[in-house]
């Protein structure tokens, strides 16, 4: 039995496109409805990435900017979890790409001019492939909160950006991981674009002492669910018949 169409997206699981509290979304959100259709091979195929695409330190943001010569400043953490689909199956070989601010809340990006200094030993980007069970892990430092121009005094909670690529281009997802207990999460208009409280909770990674290493690093767990596919029971027939 082969795999069938992608499971149609449940848009209530996701943020609203237009949210006046997140001001940039006001002019960048489509005002007409999306055209919803069954997926085709265009969405059901996608680029494949292999271990030969990745460098040995790509998963280690503490050391990858200096190629292992020096370590980044900040609270050392392991971020790990599983990438599964909506049916609960692990997705092996998923490309997990992350980027984040440094411990002071500054991004190493030509457009970030926040007054917090760059850490000469921190780049802020990492990537890895999930293993056979869908598990992935990174070493990094906990990013700092930072202010941003939106309402009069908005601050982003500490967060790590995640970009996920499964086997299908239609599964592509970008999201942000927050840290359990951060009081800025519930003041953040970007987090608040997710209207379903349970879904917003699913972006908050709990402290996971089972994976923390004594005298070295703490750990946070962040599981990720991508779109799934139906089983192809009787699908080789024209649509609607």
């Amino acid at each position: 039995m082969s795999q069938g169409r992608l499971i149609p997206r449940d848009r209530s699981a996701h943020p609203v496109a237009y949210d006046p509290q997140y001001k940039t979304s006001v002019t960048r959100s489509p005002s007409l409805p999306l055209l919803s259709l069954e997926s085709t091979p265009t969405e059901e195929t996608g680029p494949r990435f292999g271990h030969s695409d990745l460098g040995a330190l790509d998963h280690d943001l503490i050391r990858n900017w200096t190629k292992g010569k020096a370590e980044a400043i900040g609270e050392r953490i392991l971020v790990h979890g599983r990438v599964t689909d909506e049916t609960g199956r692990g997705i092996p070989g998923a490309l997990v790409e992350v980027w984040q601010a440094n411990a002071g809340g500054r991004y190493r990006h030509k457009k970030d001019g926040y007054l917090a200094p760059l850490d000469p030993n921190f780049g802020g980007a990492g990537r890895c492939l999930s293993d056979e069970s869908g598990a992935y892990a990174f070493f990094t430092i906990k990013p700092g909160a930072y202010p941003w121009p939106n309402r009069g005094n908005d601050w982003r909670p500490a967060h790590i950006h995640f970009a996920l690529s499964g086997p299908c281009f239609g599964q592509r997802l970008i999201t942000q991981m927050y840290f359990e207990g951060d009081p800025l999460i519930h003041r953040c208009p970007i987090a608040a674009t997710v209207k379903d409280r349970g879904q917003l909770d699913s972006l908050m990674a709990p402290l996971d002492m089972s994976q923390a290493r004594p005298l070295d690093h703490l750990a946070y767990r962040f599981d990720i669910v991508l779109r799934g596919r139906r089983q192809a029971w009787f699908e080789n027939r024209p649509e609607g018949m």
Partner: protein
Amino acid sequence: MVQKLTQWRETPSQTAGPYVHLGLMPTWAGNAGAYEKELGQSPIAEGAKGEVIEIAGQVLDGTGWPLRDALIESWQADAAGRFPGTEGADPAVSGFCRFAIDPESAEFTLRTVKPGAVSLPDGRVQSPHIALWIVARGINMGLQTRIYFEDADRDADPVLSRIEQRDRVETLIAKPQGDGRYRFDIRLQGPGETVFLDM
């Protein structure tokens, strides 16, 4: 009580933010050398079969202002309509590209081969097209759309045929400019709003 239906909900999207290039296109962000190999630098390698084309355009917001911080990913079939990774596909076509907006011209450029028509398992045929996924600050969930070509047969395409307002089909069609160059602007909102897909 009925049996319990176990299913997981997709992780919610969040905006890619203004610094998405740091993670996905580090050289563009000013961090050349962060990775030995950046992914999605070109959808084609030397020797790719078919017509090499260049598609340029802008991403415009609801006021008509061009975005400079967007990042776009593209995915397409080879010149024979086969997706990379499937049987018989052109090994010189990876089909995948990441591109950003030039800060001076506020334009993106995608250099690739013109894809072929794609046959579906049920016998229908999709006209030549390139799938796009657009992310930026202020876009809370990546936007899916497609580029079709004015100089290719599009009559039977199963996606285009489902667009009710026929004049909106034009928003998905790249216009030839000569010498293999095409124009394709993306309007996020307002007059001429691009048809975005949920597929």
